Every structure is written in C-alpha cells, then in structure tokens.
C-alpha cells in the first residue's frame, strides 16, 4: 500500500536503484485495486497479464542499467474513452461494450514511449456525459471519502482510483470539467491542459471543440511529470497546437511574489456552498502571504455558462455519436426489417438516457428553424467568454475559483433532474469554452468531504498554473489526506 503513496520521482528512484522491482510494484498495484474494487468500483477492465509481463521487460531494462524516463515502470490507469490497441474501449456504454480498439490513441503511444504501464481502463459517465459517473452502463463508482456519495464525473473512475490508492496516476478527459470537478470531489489533483496541448487522436469524441485529455494525480509534481510525457503537437490531430512544450517540472518551486490573482465574483455568490467558498478564500489568503495579491473581477459571461455549454457540446455530440449506427462496430439490433429500423433500435437500445437526452438536444438546436435561436447564439456567447478571459488576463496572471459549487453529492440525489446535475459544472465550463488550462487542487474539507480550488491560466501558460498550484500544496496538506478505506 505504502509504495503507491510515494511520488513519481520517489518511485523512479527506487526502481532505478533496484530497491524496488517494477514487477513487485505492479503486483502491489493490482493488490490495491482488487482490495478496493468491491467498494469503489473505479475500473471497467484490467490488463493484468500484459502489465505484469511488461513490468518484467522494464525490470530487465533497469537491470541493464539503461537510462529510462522518470515515468518508466510507473502504473497508470486510463479512462475508458481512450483507445488502447487490443483492449476494450467501452466509453461505459452498451454501444461499445464489446468494442476492441484496433489502434492506439496518441497519448497511449506516448505512455508506451515513456515505458509506463497502463494497468486498466476506468469507469466514467457514458461517453463522458455526466457529472457523477452514475451514467455508466456497468456500475456507479463510489467516492472513497464517503461510499454513498458520487465521485463526480465524468472522469469519476480516474479520480476515485487515485484517491483510493489503487493507482498513483490516471488519465481522464475534460469537456466541461470532467477532470477537475471529480478531482475536487475525490480530494485529488486534476489538470486540464490548454485545448490543443495534448492530442485528442484516439479519445472517443464527446464535444470535439471542448474535449481535452489530462492527468490526475496526488500532487502537482506528479501532474507535471505526466504532462511532460503526453503533451505536444500530433500530425494525427489538426487541432493539436504546434507550440514548443516546456519541461513542466522546472516551474515548480518558483516563488509567486507579485503574482496577480483575479477572483471571479460570479463564482463566489450564493450558487456556491458557503463552506466551499470559505475553503477557497482561505487558500487565497495563504497565497497572498507568499506575496501574491488578489481582487475580485467581474466575468459577465459566466452566468450563461450552462446554456452556452449544453447547446454547443450537445450539438457536437449529436454528430460525433452518429457513427454508432450498428454498421461497422459495436452494438447492433439484429432482426431489423430494414436499415431505418436497425438504426433506430440499435441506437435506442445502445445509448443510455443521458446520452439520448443530449443527442436529442443537440439535434434540435442544429435543426432547421432553431439553429439561429440556439446554436448560433451559443457560438456568439462563446466569443464573450473568450473576451472576458482575454480582458481579465490582461490584468491577472491567473484566476482562482472553487472547482465545484459543492462537495460530492449523494448517489441518486440528482440523477432525476438533469438541470440540477448540470449546475455541478458552473465553475469549470467557462474554462473549456475558452480552451484554457486549469487545475483543481484539494483545498479543505466540508463535513468530511473534500473541496477543490481551481487555478485557471492563460492559453499555453500551464507553467504559471502549475507554479501556483505547487506553491499552494507546499503551504497545505489537504492533498496528503487519505480517506479511511476498507482494510
């Protein structure tokens, strides 16, 4: 158990000095997974055999004294919407329950290049649509801090597995907060890079203009290590940016004297749980003691985050999910008399209710007669979000907000009321609309449940975000707290 609590750099040191065998590390990882899994249920599938044989290969390399990357031999779990060749990629959907990915996502290739070991695929809301991981066709993942609470979503498996000590690292995807909100709920650190920083090739698309893959870890330093490995331009993804990738660990530990922090007033109002708000304010005060200064800023677009986001993301999703038609792969309704019936019954029985709701909404807002009223308006609204951020970043280096308006809610509490569920993302959505980098770090506890603080940065300025978050974790120990678990 203890070994997985160490940082990536510490584990690397042990592996390199051969104090620890990679094989033992992986065996221990599966022990932890199997121990916690009956209660937490973070995973959809495991790749135990492949992982152990891979760990043996890596041991041989270490034995030979080869200079290996810092992440070599470290286990990582991957959200089940990222393709790993030869393994199931289900998106937690009946539609893809038996789909075996015939190719590797670019991030998967990068993990392999860094000799990392993908130990299994993580639970999520179906096609990443949701904020609680309750929309998985397989099972609901539970919050390690309180088993009757949700872990957040959609990357609930990614954050719960790290919080429960099953794995030291995981990958998630973030379209409207799907890494940061569950990171806040589970008391772990989760990062959404700038749109275009990490290739989306092989990430099953939800909303292409918003989706971004990012890491989940116990602390900022580990986040930086993974970010180093997965970032960079990819000739398979036209939206990936051809911008130099710095070493993200170099910015850590730098001081924050004179740092200017903007604090969006709209995310400190009545919509935010007052205790959560207080945790964040405490954090701001700690940072100001280190020489940063902060002030309120008005972000007038923010109150329209949900409308803008749900129109745009559902519209894109309605097209992205049209490929699931029962023709080439995945679930199919057999015995249909004709193609139209096959389509309707395949899709009707293959998608869960939240996915269908979004497809309906997305189809509606794009359809003739409604496009201008909804879709075109939302696109204009998106511009206003970008302008608000651009204006704020002329004055401030980062913005700080709560990651989520509340702490984790109870399983089943919001599942009947989609609109209520959507409000869980009000703090994270604006960041995706503008394509910015942002991190969620644990910033305290409310009734025993973790709260998260979000640091938002300028596009492609991940370094400042990481620097601030790292400083914050030097000043606090919330990220070191562990849930009381079985065994």
């Amino acid at each position, binding site marked *: 158990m203890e070994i997985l609590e160490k940082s990536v750099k510490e584990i690397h040191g042990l592996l390199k000095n051969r104090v620890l065998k990679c094989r033992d590390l992986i065996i221990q990882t599966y022990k932890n997974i199997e121990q916690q899994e009956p209660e937490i249920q973070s995973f959809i599938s495991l790749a135990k055999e492949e992982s152990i044989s891979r760990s043996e290969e890596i041991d041989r390399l270490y034995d030979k004294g080869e200079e290996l990357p810092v992440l070599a031999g470290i286990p990582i779990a991957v959200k089940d919407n990222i393709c790993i060749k030869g393994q199931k990629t289900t998106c937690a959907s009946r539609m893809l329950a038996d789909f075996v990915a015939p190719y590797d996502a670019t991030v998967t290739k990068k993990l392999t290049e860094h000799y990392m070991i993908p130990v299994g695929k993580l639970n999520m809301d179906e096609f990443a649509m949701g904020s609680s991981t309750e929309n998985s066709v397989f099972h609901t993942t539970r919050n390690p801090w309180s088993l009757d609470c949700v872990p957040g979503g959609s990357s609930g498996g990614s954050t719960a597995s790290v919080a429960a000590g099953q794995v030291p690292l995981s990958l998630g995807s973030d379209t409207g907060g799907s890494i940061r909100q569950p990171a806040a709920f589970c008391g772990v650190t989760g990062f959404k890079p700038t749109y275009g920083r990490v290739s989306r090739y092989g*990430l099953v698309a939800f*909303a*292409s203009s918003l989706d971004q893959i990012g890491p989940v870890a116990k602390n900022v330093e580990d986040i930086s290590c993974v970010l180093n490995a997965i970032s960079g331009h990819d000739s398979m*993804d*036209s939206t990936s940016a051809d911008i130099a990738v710095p070493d993200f660990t170099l910015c850590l530990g730098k001081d924050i004297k004179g740092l200017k922090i903007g604090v969006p007033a709209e995310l400190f109002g009545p919509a935010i749980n007052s205790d959560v708000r207080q945790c964040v304010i405490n954090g701001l005060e700690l940072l100001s003691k280190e020489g940063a200064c902060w002030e309120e800023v008005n972000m007038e677009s923010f109150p329209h985050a949900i409308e803008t986001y749900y129109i745009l993301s559902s519209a894109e999703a309605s*097209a992205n999910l049209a490929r699931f038609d029962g023709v080439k792969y995945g679930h199919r309704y057999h015995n249909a008399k004709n193609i139209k019936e096959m389509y309707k019954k395949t899709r009707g029985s293959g998608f869960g209710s939240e996915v269908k709701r979004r497809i309906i909404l997305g189809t509606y807002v794009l359809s003739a007669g409604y*496009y201008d009223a909804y879709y075109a308006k939302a696109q204009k609204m998106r511009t206003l979000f970008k302008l608000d951020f651009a204006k704020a970043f002329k004055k401030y280096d980062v913005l700080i907000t709560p990651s989520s308006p509340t702490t984790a809610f109870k399983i089943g509490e919001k599942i009947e009321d989609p609109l209520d569920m959507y409000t869980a993302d009000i703090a994270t959505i604006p960041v995706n609309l503008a394509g910015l980098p942002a991190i969620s770090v644990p910033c305290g506890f409310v009734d025993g449940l973790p709260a998260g603080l979000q640091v938002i940065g300028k596009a492609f300025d991940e370094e400042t975000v990481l620097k601030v978050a790292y400083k914050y974790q030097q000043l606090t120990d919330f990220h070191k707290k562990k849930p009381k678990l079985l065994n």
Partner: protein
Amino acid sequence: MEFEPVIGIEVHAQLKTRTKLFCGCSTNSGEKRNSNVCPVCLGMPGALPVLNKKAVEYAVRAGLALNCTVKELSVFSRKNYFYPDLPKGYQISQFDLPVCENGSITIDVDNRKKTIGIQRIHMEEDAGKLIHQGSASIAGADYSLVDLNRACVPLIEIVSEPDIRSAREARVYVEALKLILQHTGVCDGNLEEGSLRADVNISIRPLGQEKLGTRAEVKNLNSFRSLERAATVEIERQKALIISGGKVVQQTRNWDDASQKTTALRSKEEAHDYRYFQEPDLIPLRLPVAMIREIKNSMPELPVKKMERYKADLGLNDFNSYQILVDCDMNRYFEECLLIKEDIEPSEICKWILGDLNALVKDGNSSFSECKVTPEKLITLVKLIKSGKISGKIAKEVIKKMYETGADPENIVKESGVEQISDTDMLQAAVDKVLAANPDVVLKIKAGKTNSANFLMGQVMRETRGQAQPDLVRKLILDTVNKG
C-alpha cells in the same frame, strides 16, 4: 407557348491524389473490398481527420483554371445524415465558406461563344460503395454490403450558375470542364468510371419570363451522350407536363440509358435536414497568398492556351488542334514528341498520331501512355520518311510492326528489306528497261503529256517492288526521255 430551359450543373470531380482527403489510405478503390481503410476513413471512435495538402492544391488549381476567386479562408462543415455508405454519420464538406467562388468558363457551342458562370467549388469527401444483394438495384435487394474503400476519397464539387440554355450547351459545358480538369492534372475526368459525375438541374419557363420554374435534378449520367440525351428528354417531359396542365415537382430523377427515360427516385421518408455546422476537428483552412501564388505559377498550360499555341506556333488547323488535345494521354504523347522533333513538321507528327497510331491504340484497347511506339520511335519513323528511306505507304506497315513488337523502325526496315531505293544507278537500270518496253508512252511524254510519266512510274515501282523513291523515279524518267 415557347419555353426556355434553364440548366445548372453540379459536377463532382475526384481529385488525382495518391491518398484520401483526410487520411493516408490509398485512393485506389479497385482493390479487395475494405482493404484501403483505416480508423479515420472507417469513422472509428476517436479517429480524427487531417487535411491532404495536395487535395487543397488541386482544388485551388481547378479554381484558378476556372477563373475563380480563391478564398484565403475557407471552412469545413459537417453535413449530417445517416446512410450505410457514410461511416461517420456525417460528410465533411465545405458549406458556407467554400475554397473557390465566382468563376466562369467560355465554351464554344457550334461555333458560338458562350460564358457560363461558376458559382463555387468546394472540397468534400466521397462516400463508400453499396453492393446490393438479391437484386441488381436497391429496390429489390434483400440486403446490402458496404465497401468503404472509396470513403473519404477527395472530391471537388463545381457548381455552375443556371446559365445553360440547352441540352447541347450542357454537354459542351461538361466536356469543357473535363478537358480543363484533365489538363490541369486535377482529375482524370472519366464519366464512365465515375471519376467525373454530373448532376443536371433542369427547369423550364415561358420565353421572356424572369421567374425560374421548378427544377428537377437528373442523375446517373455515365457518358456525354447520355447527358445530352437525358437533358433533352427531361426538357421535353417538363414541356409536355406543363402544356397538359400539370406541374413540375421538385425531385431527383434517374436517367435510364436502356429506356431513354428519366424516372423519379423514390422520395425520401422525411425531408432532409442536414444540420450543417462547422467541423470542430478541422481548424479553418487559411491559404497564405504566397501558396496561392505558387500554385498559380506552377499551373499547367490550360487547353484554351494550348490550342492557340498549336494553331499559331505549330500551324495546326482548328480540327487537328482540338483533336490532339482532347485525349489527355494522347496530348501528353504529342507534347513529348514536340520536345524531340528536331526539324520534323509538327503537323506531320500530328497526322501520324491522330491517324495510324490512334487507330492502333484504339483497336488494341490500349492507351498512349502504355504504347510500345514511344515518341522517340515515332519521330525516328517520321524521319525515315522525310529522308526518303521509306515511303509513306511502307511506313504504315512499319508502324503496325512497331506497335506490335516495340521494335525500332530502323531495324524493321532493315530486316524486312523495305528500304526505299535511292541509288540512282540501280534505278536508272529499271527506268531504262521500262522505257524500252513502252516506246509509245515515251513518245507521248515527248509530245508534252508529262502526266503519262505516271504510268511509267507505276511500272518502275512494280519492278522495284515498291521500294523506289517516287520523286527520284519521276525525275529519272523525265530526264531520260528528254535526253533521248
């Protein structure tokens, strides 16, 4: 009442790239079913499109050749509809911001010049192919098979303005487009094989009326002949319909070559609502001015310019200039000949290509690009004629052998002993012999009837088994008669 047809044409041209529009798969769709496919063109979950640079170049080239404005900014959109040959459930196509706009071409319709406007040219991906089982057509099929080799193959759609006023103009317009696309290397322009597809939108209105009538779109036109014929038939159908008090319905009609009729395709269950929106996976295409300029500078010679050059510089007549141009393969062959022709007259080369060689290629169901008579060998043959080594008549036999075996004309001439006799001494003997045997003819010539020499020439040619050089024989006959 007199009616005027109003016709607009949408032409889909397959771009001659090696790879598909958005992935590295080969565009060769003739291979085993579903063999040239990858996660991208199969619409696998998580796969993303990346635009082919060459396809962009070709689209711009086509635009420049058709006098369009090339847009520095153009955008791809998703056209959403379900069909089993469309793997992603949407087609990536340019919608409101196409790569080229506002062009035109001038066509020559039976010696009358006419300019047809080009509204736009946009890029899009092709769909896959359906193979219906249990019946030849979709209607009676029990089920269908999907082959995605063709999915994502790059196309441009060229949309004309409704400037066309007759079936004949429609045909000439598409012929002219084909020629331009072929000569710019953008498309191989094969209507029969579907690398060029024309959909013809036809409406009619009373002559003099401004307002357009309701149009029908005619599809499945696999040759220029059927295109012209289908347009004629559809115009007549609409006329008859209106005269009998009926109304033209907006619909898609299928041309059937066998019955020479257009028939309405089954109307879809629901009205189309393509829900176009900008493709978020592809950032808008920004074409730097320098890139457009570079494409402009490297443009192959357009057919119109080429024809002018053939007439002015090479002295070819109208007919031959066009004929030597219209088949791209043949034209390339001709151009290669011009490069090595030395002092040979272009019209002489043109004559051989359009005549004997073309006949041989056609009979052999072959093409000029795979012809064993290389341009070098053809030039050698023409030189043999010019230098008097062989006669034109013999050359016709030689080129046949060259076509069959690929042998050098010089070798064929040597081996078969058909070289022309230009040795004066040898010929003089034959002339003397013929003159001695025909004293009466000699007298006629002496009396000034030089035409009678033709008879004697024939005799000499027979003596020499056709190998004598005719001009020389004639000269020898006249000289000998006059001396004597």
